[in-house]
């Protein structure tokens, strides 16, 4: 697993990125929202089928009982076969993907909050970073998986190849859809931040700016007064108020600065995601072609078989006509030979 340092402000020993599968537990503490992941949804479908597994097993048992008298029981085959590296890796990536999905869901919940005061900026930033890392590492892992799939192309059958190929493609498309979701969540977040800022401006900034101007005017007046050097009392009277305002402005500015930083962060994330998108684009395109139905290939193959049959017939005809030619030539040669032997020898 790739380890990364976490970008968060609290750099404790916890702040080590352990890969997608390890961050899940730790995330549970972040937010105590109800986990949607495990809630079973109401099942609206009727069960119109009948399970006959038990019947099958009992049939097996009775048959085995009958056979036991005749032949000795063979040693049971090792059922749990060694799974290939490819499958294991694909499984792991699938698991990581679903974990990341869970995180993304949490992030969505957090990001969609519009409350002005309960803004969990730190957590969101942390989650965003983690998910970004996850997506990156998943992308790398899928690329590795693809390499693995390609490397064993030669030794496996065609179907295995198609199978592994479509696993890779499906993983990729899932990742693509996830990064798409991620992007839209980030956009929502940006939008929210914007709104928050405008709201803040409405309720706090507007009077503040007015007072700032006020203060500035006072200041200028103070300066003027300084210049004129007439009454010091007024300036002393004004000073604490003005400094108070300035302090306020400073605070606001630092807050705005931090906001701007966050925005920049999000924007850079979006740009990074863009590059991932491009990598995935051609793969997803393959997926697009799969709107077809399962019986599409059958007719094609039938046509192909017919075409092949026709070609083979053609070839057969040409071969047989060639054969006739050869036989004729051979026959003529024989005649000459016999004529030669009989009449000239």
């Amino acid at each position, binding site marked *: 697993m790739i380890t990364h340092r976490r970008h968060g402000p609290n750099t404790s020993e916890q702040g080590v990125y352990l890969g997608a599968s390890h961050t899940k537990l730790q995330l549970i503490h972040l937010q105590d929202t109800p986990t949607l*992941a495990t809630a079973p949804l109401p099942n609206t479908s009727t069960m*119109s089928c009948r*399970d006959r*597994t038990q*019947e099958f097993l009992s049939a097996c048992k009775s048959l085995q009982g009958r056979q036991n008298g005749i032949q000795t029981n063979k040693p049971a085959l090792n059922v749990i076969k060694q799974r290939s590296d490819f499958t294991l890796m694909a499984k792991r990536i699938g698991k990581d993907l679903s974990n990341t999905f869970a995180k993304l869901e949490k992030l969505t919940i957090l990001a969609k909050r519009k409350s002005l005061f309960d803004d969990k900026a730190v957590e969101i930033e942390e989650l965003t970073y983690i998910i970004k890392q996850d997506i990156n590492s998943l992308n790398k892992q899928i690329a590795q998986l693809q390499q693995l799939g390609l490397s064993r192309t030669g030794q496996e059958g065609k179907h295995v190849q198609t*199978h592994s190929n479509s696993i890779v493609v499906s993983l990729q498309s899932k990742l693509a859809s996830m990064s798409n979701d991620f992007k839209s969540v980030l956009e929502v977040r940006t939008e929210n931040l914007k709104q928050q800022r405008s709201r803040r401006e409405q309720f706090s900034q507007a009077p503040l700016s007015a007072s700032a101007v006020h203060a500035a005017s006072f200041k200028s007046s103070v300066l003027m007064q300084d210049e004129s050097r007439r009454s010091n009392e007024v300036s002393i009277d004004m000073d604490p108020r003005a400094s108070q305002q300035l302090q306020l402005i400073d605070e606001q500015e630092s807050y705005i600065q931090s906001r701007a930083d966050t925005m920049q962060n999000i924007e850079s994330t979006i740009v990074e995601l863009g590059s991932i998108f491009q990598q995935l684009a051609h793969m997803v395109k393959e997926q697009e072609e799969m709107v077809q139905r399962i019986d599409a290939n059958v007719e094609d193959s039938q046509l192909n078989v017919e075409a092949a049959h026709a070609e083979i017939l053609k070839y057969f005809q040409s071969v047989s006509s060639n054969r006739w030619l050869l036989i004729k030539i051979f026959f003529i040669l024989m005649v000459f030979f016999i004529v030669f032997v009989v009449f000239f020898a």
Partner: protein
Amino acid sequence: MLDVKVHSELRVPRHRRCHRHLPAKMATSIREKQTAALRRMLNFNVPPLKNTVTEPVWKVLIYDRFGQDIISPLLAVKELRDMGITLHLLLHSDRDSIPDVPAIYFVMPTEENIDRICQDLRNQLYESYYLNFISAISRSKLEDIASAALGANAVTQVTKVFDQYLNFITLEDDMFVLCNQNKELISYHAINKPDIMDTDMEAIMDTIVDSLFCFFVTLGAVPIIRCPRGNAAEMVAVKLDKKLRENLRDARNSLFTGDTMGAGQFSFQRPLIVLADRNLDLATPLHHSWTYQALIHDVLDFHLNRVTLEEGAGSEALPAGARPKKKNKRIYDLTAADKFWQKHKGSPFPEVAESVQQELDTYRAQEDEVKRLKSIMGLEGEDEGAISMLSDNTAKLTSAVSSLPELLEKKRLIDLHTNVATAVLDHIKTRKLDLYFEYEEKLMSKSTLDKSLLDIISDPDAGTPEDKIRLFLIFYITSQQPPSEADLDQYKKALMDAGCDLSPLSYIKQWKAFTKMAATPANYGNSGVKPMGLFSMVMNTGSQFVMEGVKNLVLKQHNLPVTRILDNLMDMKSNPETDDYRYFDPKMLRGSESSIPRNKNPFQEAIVFVVGGGNYIEYQNLVDYAKAKQGKRVLYGCSELFNAAQFVKQLSQLGQK
């Protein structure tokens, strides 16, 4: 109106047996129900949870031709991929071993399929096996598999064995057919063969009843059965009643237990199934239709919701020396997701043509919008002053870009319908189908004819020989008095001159004589039956969609015989046509021979099933009927779906005997 069952959705401990969950709403269509059943099967027979967090499990789907026909109209490859199906293969194709993947089988329990499964088990093709049978597998076949599994030491690998009861093909939300493979076994021809053996007939009926039973299991309701007396439909009804009854009696294994509890108290909510026989109405399948879907089915190759168009090589002149180009086939799927199709499949064709034109115009407008936006953006790069508008335009551009895929999809659909409609229009023009349609409507409504039948038959420009024989057959079926021998000879001669095969006529003659003897009430010749309804015609020459030369005919609503029967039975109307229909209620303890219905409440939900083949004309008629009646739902089913050409072929086979 529909009973919404209140039931707890608490998580029940998973039992070994299947748990029947009550449907939240009865209103879900049969297509949704079958799709849900398929999805559950593909999820290893565990009801799929609807969230993305579940880990993907990759698996292989193995099906036979039957399974293929069932799945293909319902689930596209993409949806299968989303469910983790990486490969979908035919059972009888060459399959390589994929050792670490579970395989889901979806096959009919036939001998050769079972053999093949056993072979797969022996060859250790996959990691584990989920066997799903389309209809119930018999005990002996199950034992065959068991012994093969024992022999291969693969008993533990056979993880699940299920009977799916899905042996029917859903084509629309409210339409199904029984089968597509081997459909000649239960065709009209097979049922009405004069030399049919009793055992063959039994086999045919068993096949039909098995599929119908599967249909009701999937629907999750026990119907009340009505059928006419003395034909194949009655045999089906008796057998279906018996099968449902046996299943209900065996309470432990019943497939209906779950919701019959709820539905029992509201017995009027049970669906009604009307089993009709094709012999009731032979004219409709021969009729030239005028609605979009039925026309496509009639003149094009329309099969399991898929149209195949042959690209005519004649449209563009080929260079003289070039080899004749291979015929280009274009395949279009007409799916439920296609809104235009859903809206217009039942509209008369001229209306469809107009709507295609309109759609095209709106699409062009949208495309222009995007183009305009592009040009504005291009301008703004230079214009310094308009920078303030940039952000606004960026938002617009983003929305335009995100709407692009949608627009592309729309374009695809419009292209599809333009091509299909053009192909249909070509047929209408070359065969003068409007003329035939109009004339046949008049024949069936017994209004005065403005042109003699002989003229049309002998007109070399109008239609193919097949169109002519269809017209004549309709004339013959609907006429009250059979034409005199001299007239008939004249017609025959004209038909022969036009190149028609006259063997269907000989069968229709027999049929007509027989129905006369039996005096089937639904006969067209019966004067008690009202005329088929009025038919209005509007001449519209200036249509936009190159419709010149084709009359713009507008349909007027009228009920076909099947719809009329359904109407009588659903509303419990008294009518000599339907009064002696037999009545079966599989839930009654003792089967009654009476034809008196027990309850007098009108039905809200009905299924019409035509034994011996159906068509889109009747389907459309029923859909229109259900639309007109508030709160009623009608499903249409048939043992086989044929168009007029296939039906004429079957009739001629019957006539040759």
